[in-house]
């Protein structure tokens, strides 16, 4: 268990700044997820922590020691890659013990660590196999095992589940969470999958354009997004946005189509963008707004009903068996206490 701290980190690749003046502190034992669209710099950031990408300025500290220019093998990290990156000519056992053999660890100690990791990951029966003889899920388990036997202070995951099919992905995701609960190690995990981010993270770092947009617990980031980018990136169906004004009392209004009662914490007398998550749009007879149903998506355990009112398309989650058809006019209400408000120019949360 160790903390990781990045200070004023800058990374330029091929003349293009990828990471800009980035500060980040990862607490010991934390499961930190770096989340963002492809090209946002999250993978580069992870690689720089691993020492696989050179930094241009700034400092990287792992476990209180400066590791900015240290060799990848000296940083006390274990890493799991998207493509598994197993050594194809070595058996599972040799794959896992390769690092230890290089380090000259005594045979008995290697044996103990490999056996322990194999038991944790249910790889006991596969130790003599070659990677080509394993399924995708088994390969990724071996890759995790390879990181485990290093008894690393920090585990780095670079989209480890992206190559797996949906069912395996969910299974391995739960295993990873269990593993973190068991080991309590510091883990840094890169993904573009918000479900992985929400379910695994103790804190999520949302990135875009090489900069951190928001750091917070999954609930925090979801419920109180720091800006419109974070709000739009997290959540499926996505948050709906409505342009309007806040009047002197802090009431939101948009040409008489949307309105919200005043709220203490809300600024007043300025233009604003209203952000509404689907779960806070409720279709019921007593609703004070009326919209037209445009699309119904049955999801099995719930249905997503898309409503149009004015220029905005709102999604509503319906958890009962009511039937809706496109063209229906339905009454609905918005939970005014759970909405987000953003500045129309900067996009920042008000």
């Amino acid at each position, binding site marked *: 268990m160790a903390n990781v701290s990045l200070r004023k980190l800058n990374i330029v690749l091929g003349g293009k700044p990828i990471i800009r003046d980035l500060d980040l502190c990862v607490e010991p034992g934390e499961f930190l997820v770096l989340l963002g669209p492809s090209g946002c710099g999250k993978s580069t950031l992870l690689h720089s922590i691993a020492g*696989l990408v050179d930094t241009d300025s700034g400092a990287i500290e792992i476990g209180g020691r400066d590791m900015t220019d240290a060799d*990848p*093998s000296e940083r006390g990290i274990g890493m799991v890659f998207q493509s598994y990156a197993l050594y194809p000519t070595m058996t599972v056992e040799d794959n896992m013990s390769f*690092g230890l053999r290089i380090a000259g660890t005594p045979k008995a100690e290697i044996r103990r660590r490999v056996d322990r990791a194999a038991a944790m990951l249910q790889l006991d029966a596969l130790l003599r196999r070659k*990677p080509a003889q394993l399924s995708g899920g088994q390969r990724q388990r071996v*890759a995790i095992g390879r990181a485990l036997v290093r008894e690393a202070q920090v585990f780095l995951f670079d989209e480890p589940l992206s*190559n797996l099919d949906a069912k395996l992905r969910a299974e391995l995701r739960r295993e990873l969470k269990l593993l973190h609960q068991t080991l309590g190690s510091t883990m840094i995990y890169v993904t573009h999958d918000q479900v992985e981010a929400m379910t695994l993270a103790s804190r999520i770092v949302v990135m875009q354009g090489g900069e951190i947009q928001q750091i917070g617990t999954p609930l925090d980031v979801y419920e109180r997004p720091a800006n419109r980018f974070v709000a739009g990136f997290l959540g499926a169906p996505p948050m709906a946005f409505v342009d309007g004004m806040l009047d002197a009392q802090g009431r939101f209004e948009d040409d008489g189509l949307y309105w919200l009662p005043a709220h203490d914490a809300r600024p007043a007398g300025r233009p604003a963008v209203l952000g509404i998550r689907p779960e806070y749009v409720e279709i019921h007879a007593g609703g004070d707004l009326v919209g037209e149903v445009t699309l119904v998506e049955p999801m099995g355990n719930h249905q997503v009903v898309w409503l149009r009112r004015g220029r905005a398309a709102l999604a509503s989650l319906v958890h009962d068996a009511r039937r809706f058809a496109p063209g229906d006019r339905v009454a609905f209400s918005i939970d005014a206490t759970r909405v987000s408000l953003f500045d129309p120019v900067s996009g920042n949360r008000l």
Partner: protein
Amino acid sequence: MKMESIVPPLPAAAPVAAPARPARRARRRWTPARIGLYVFLLGAALFFLLPLYVMIVTSMKSMDEIRQGGIFALPLAPTLQPWRLAWSGVCTGAACDGVRTGFWNSVAITVPSTILPILLGAVNGYALSFWRPRGANVLFGILMAGAFVPVQVMIYPLVRVMALAGIFGSLPAIVLVHLVFGMPVMTLLFRNYYCNVPHELFQAARIDGGGFWRIFLQVMLPMSLPVVVVAAIMQVTGVWNDYILGLVFAGRDNMPMMVQLNNVINTTTGVRQYNVNMAATILTALVPLALYFFSGRWFVRGIAAGAVKG
């Protein structure tokens, strides 16, 4: 973007063998097009096999029988005497002990001239693909340019350099020359192969603490078997069939088989012994021929890989 497998085409995993054909195509009909195709293929095969046939039957005839003409006729009294003579008795210049000295000279030249370029080419390709030293692309460009310069242009300067170094006309000299001329293609071959290996594999080995040589020897080289075989085929055939470099650089004591064969056939004194000439030629061609036969699919791949050398 699904990377199914990090396992590169290892021999067992990547046969060039035809993929399973759908059942409905299994029954072929004898259409005119197909008959024409077979006629053409048979004709082409005959065209290439006929000279070989003539060589083999001629090598087993006596000179009297050859003088009677009828080069396609089977030998009346088959004899292996010409073969014996070609192997251990025919004059190859001043000495008259057959092409066998040339054979062993060629073996002595080919073995190091295959192993060294492959090893060096593999290290080059590995360094260029994974470690990407400063100016790697420039270096690679220069190396490739070297592949386009005709060998003949460089012979004189190389002779001068070798003479200066005091190794001209020796085994190390000819091996060095083959090493130099083999380097561009060997490097290209391995570089292209390693470029298809996921970079993450290299990064994983770095995190495991592997250095330059350990990653090369324990991770990359063991998974390079397919390309090593291809490289070996290209290098063995190239070196074995070489005439001009052997003639110039090998020196009197290391004349390769190809040079001795020329001496046997182009002799200006005495009677032309066609049967011995044929036997000597077949003996000389035997090594590349055997390579063609025993490495079929790999050889095709070698030709395909060689196609990029321009």
